[in-house]
């Protein structure tokens, strides 16, 4: 391939630069702030994501307090939140703002930017054998757009009328009309502006990831030799690039409806006694635009987690990932289907039943590639020689969560059952397990596994084990019983259930769930502490390849500089998963195929 030749020339050039690196004096600003080194940008994404995760998690603890203890007052809340918690009790407006921001922050800022942003940036060049991203400049801009989005979203928390409070799905007309909700005033404009910045960030990142993976692979790194992490990130980036612009268009139209008097989503509305002139718009149109991103979005979250877990499970089972091609194929199938199922979020909007039938069929089809992945993970464990590093435990936890949450998807994807379960706690349980917890577990697996590569030190494993066990047990205790609340029809986004004959029988359970969620949140603080402590004081990594791994990132020096390899980029001769082959524990990708080596 001609690109390989060109690349090679560049490599030498870059290697030359890398060799000179010691002579350049990098300033604090160029190294830690406006850095163009993909590894530093990855860390920026990770730490920003962690800060958001703490904020988003704290919000959930606050609204869980209300759900668990609707009769109690907490005077310290009023000290903290002022008129949002008058008399020590969260006000409904603020409760809904918290719910909305919790969803927005965790879905977009943590599990999209924090997860993809971190691992795509960190792993792509290191695992495919490149000095850096195709465009380090765009990569840097991608972070700073995300940072701008973060600042705007954070600022929206402090406006007088409160942040957006119409749910993270921001359905108009509620989100379009300041008269309908105080959160739909300036807070909503800030939300939309922040998301626009976020989408720009995601597009810059995504384009960069795709072009880097397609163009900058080292010699011998054919597509089918890439680790599954890279495949997962490639599909994630393609999903993002194709679907985020649709949300952007929806957001812009919504801004028009809000501020310029257009009627894209508004029709026949009387709000607060005011008769609005808007006619002919469709509120449902927005839902189509939103879910055209919104559904791929859940795969944007779960695919990187799948890729990370596959890699970590294979390394720590000392076995090849079972069915590499099937794993790639099933991710490809999931990526395609992701675009064809969005209306399963809209079964109760009055959707044409005939159209709904297609969405049922295509939605349940996703269960097939998902099943393939699960059975392949199980077979990867089978007859392995498993080391339970913290990363490995989180990967096993990921599979467990993916099974539990995936199976409930079969209920919700089937429209006739969805009618009953739609917008109840059943769906809360489903997507928190399969997207939230599983996504986080993939992220944790990645952080524990690659922390030595990021900082040249290990995370404290005892704290890691405590973190894992509290989180795994706690997550099941929180979300498993919610299925029952959902079966009873208990609606989501309710501030208080005590006035309802149909739902008030779960008061004790809600209290229990709230209690556990506080514990689980505390365990996450333990992780955060472990993270920052270990950056400076963790046990040092002494060998280049502490996990005995095949992939290229472990051929770089412990503290790799910008450019990753001090000398030439190594050449690749085999796939990433030759573990246990011919009786050898592992064979790195850089080792040429021996004459007597068996073909599997």
């Amino acid at each position: 391939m001609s690109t390989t030749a060109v690349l090679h020339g560049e490599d030498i050039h870059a290697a030359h630069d890398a060799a000179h690196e010691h002579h350049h004096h990098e300033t604090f600003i160029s190294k830690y702030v406006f850095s163009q080194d993909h590894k530093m940008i990855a860390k920026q994404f990770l730490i920003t994501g962690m800060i958001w995760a703490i904020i988003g998690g704290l919000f959930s603890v606050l609204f869980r307090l209300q759900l668990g203890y609707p009769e109690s007052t907490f005077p310290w809340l009023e000290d903290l939140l002022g008129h949002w918690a008058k008399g020590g009790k969260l006000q409904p407006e603020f409760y809904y703002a918290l719910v909305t921001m919790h969803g927005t922050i965790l879905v977009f800022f943590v599990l999209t930017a924090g997860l993809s942003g971190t691992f795509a940036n960190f792993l792509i060049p290191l695992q495919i054998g490149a000095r850096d991203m195709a465009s380090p400049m765009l990569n840097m801009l991608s972070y700073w757009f995300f940072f701008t989005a973060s600042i705007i979203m954070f600022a929206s928390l402090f406006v007088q009328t409160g942040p957006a409070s119409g749910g993270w799905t921001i359905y108009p007309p509620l989100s379009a009309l300041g008269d309908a909700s105080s959160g739909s005033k300036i807070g909503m404009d800030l939300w939309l502006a922040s998301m626009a910045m976020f989408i720009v960030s995601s597009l810059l990142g995504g384009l960069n990831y795709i072009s880097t993976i397609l163009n900058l692979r080292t010699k011998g790194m054919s597509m089918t030799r890439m680790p599954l992490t890279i495949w997962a990130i490639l599909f994630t980036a393609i999903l993002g690039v194709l679907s985020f612009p649709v949300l952007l268009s929806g957001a812009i139209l919504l801004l028009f409806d809000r501020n310029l008097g257009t009627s894209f989503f508004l029709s026949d509305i009387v709000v607060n006694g005011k008769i609005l002139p808007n006619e002919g718009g469709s509120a449902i149109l927005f839902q189509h635009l939103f879910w055209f991103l919104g559904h791929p979005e859940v795969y944007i979250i779960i695919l990187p987690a799948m890729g990370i877990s596959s890699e970590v499970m294979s390394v720590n089972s000392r076995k090849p990932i079972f069915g590499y091609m099937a794993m790639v194929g099933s991710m490809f199938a999931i990526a395609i289907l992701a675009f064809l199922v969005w209306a399963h979020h809209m079964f109760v909007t009055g959707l044409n039943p005939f159209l709904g039938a297609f969405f049922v069929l295509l939605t349940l089809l996703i269960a097939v590639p998902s099943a393939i992945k699960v059975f392949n993970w199980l077979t990867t464990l089978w007859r392995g020689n498993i080391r339970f590093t913290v990363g490995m435990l989180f990967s096993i936890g990921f599979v467990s969560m993916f099974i539990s949450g995936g199976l409930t998807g079969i209920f919700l994807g089937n429209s006739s059952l969805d009618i009953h379960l739609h917008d109840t706690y059943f769906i809360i349980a489903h997507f928190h397990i399969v997207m939230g917890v599983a996504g986080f577990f993939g992220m944790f697996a990645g952080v524990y596994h690659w922390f030595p590569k990021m900082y040249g030190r290990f995370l404290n494993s005892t704290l890691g084990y405590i973190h894992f066990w509290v989180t795994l047990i706690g997550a099941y205790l929180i979300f498993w019983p919610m299925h029952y609340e959902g079966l009873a029809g208990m609606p989501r986004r309710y501030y208080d259930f005590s006035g309802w004959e149909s739902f008030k029988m779960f008061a004790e359970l809600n209290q229990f769930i709230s209690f556990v969620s506080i514990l689980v949140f505390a365990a996450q603080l333990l992780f955060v502490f472990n993270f920052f402590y270990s950056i400076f004081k963790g046990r040092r990594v002494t060998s280049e390849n502490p996990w005995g791994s095949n992939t290229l990132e472990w051929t770089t020096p412990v503290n790799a500089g910008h450019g990753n390899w001090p000398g030439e980029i190594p050449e690749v001769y085999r796939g990433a998963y030759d573990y246990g082959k011919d009786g050898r524990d592992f064979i790195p990708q850089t080792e040429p195929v021996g004459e007597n080596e068996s073909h599997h």
Partner: protein
Amino acid sequence: MTQFLLIAIVVMIFVVIFQIAKASEYVSVLKGEEKARKQTNKINAFMLISFLIVGLIGVWWCNDLFFGRTLFPQGAASEMGQKIDLMLYITIGVTGVVFVITQILLFWFAFKYQEKDDRKAYYFPHNTKLELLWTTVPAIFLTVLVVFGLKYWFKITSDAPKDAVVVEVTGHQFGWEFRYPGADGILGKKDYKLTKGANGLGVNFDDEASHDDIHVSTTMHIPVNRPVKFVINAQDVIHDVGLTAFRIKMDAVPGIPTTLWFTPLYTTEEMKVRTGNPNYVYEISCDQMCGKGHFSMRGVIIVESEADYKKWLATQEPEYFTIFPDKKPKTDTPAVADSSAKPAPFAAMVDKK
């Protein structure tokens, strides 16, 4: 003071955990890292298998505790709902088997194949037959579920039977309004621009069909064992008519009327006995986020015998007369539906504007 104490205790716990973690790192260095690692490996393997066992017992226990409270054992209160329940049980059965098998395999493999000095990992990169097996088996099961599901889906979304009782449901922040078509079986036309003062629904009273329409708020009456059709509107933002006992719901969207229908099987009084709850009442919950009062947007449905329903309907005064009392006929005959009332033809509903 207690808050301060609480914070102090929490911080103390954190410090203790951290010190233990730090100490265990030093101990592992002293003992030899390899040895310490193998020991933790065994502990974690044991924890995983214990988690599986305790977890499965926990799943059972949780079901025991909460299934009764879902009111599922009592069954759905509508004809179609009972079929949905059956389908739900079948789906629980299928996915339950898969759940138990896969979780057992996951944790059992993790435990069984934990690192041992004398074990070598088995090189097993792929096997086409196995992969085909677990592509086709799930596909077959899913086909069954899809066929089953779609059959019901088309039934649920089909047109309501001709003899259905028609009620127009309108959601607004934060409450429900109901309108019955009256003796002529036709709902009067509406125009949202007429919404003003007492005319809260924007009814066009120039349309004579509206003169016998009955408007009630919050509490709706319907007869048992007869199909009921809701024509659903929203005035301000999207709401959702959630009828958990009947296993059905439908969004209320401003500008786009929707419909749903169901056949209630038990009167409210019967449900009080079935659920053992003397306060039981059918509720309409708003299931689509609609603003700060979303959680309190409660409606009530009284399901009663045909006779009681008619009796109730007879006591209601048409909205036209409550708004224009001067138009009320002098003779005090209530303008209500008698038993020969014709149900509203569907076209009239759609054409309401």
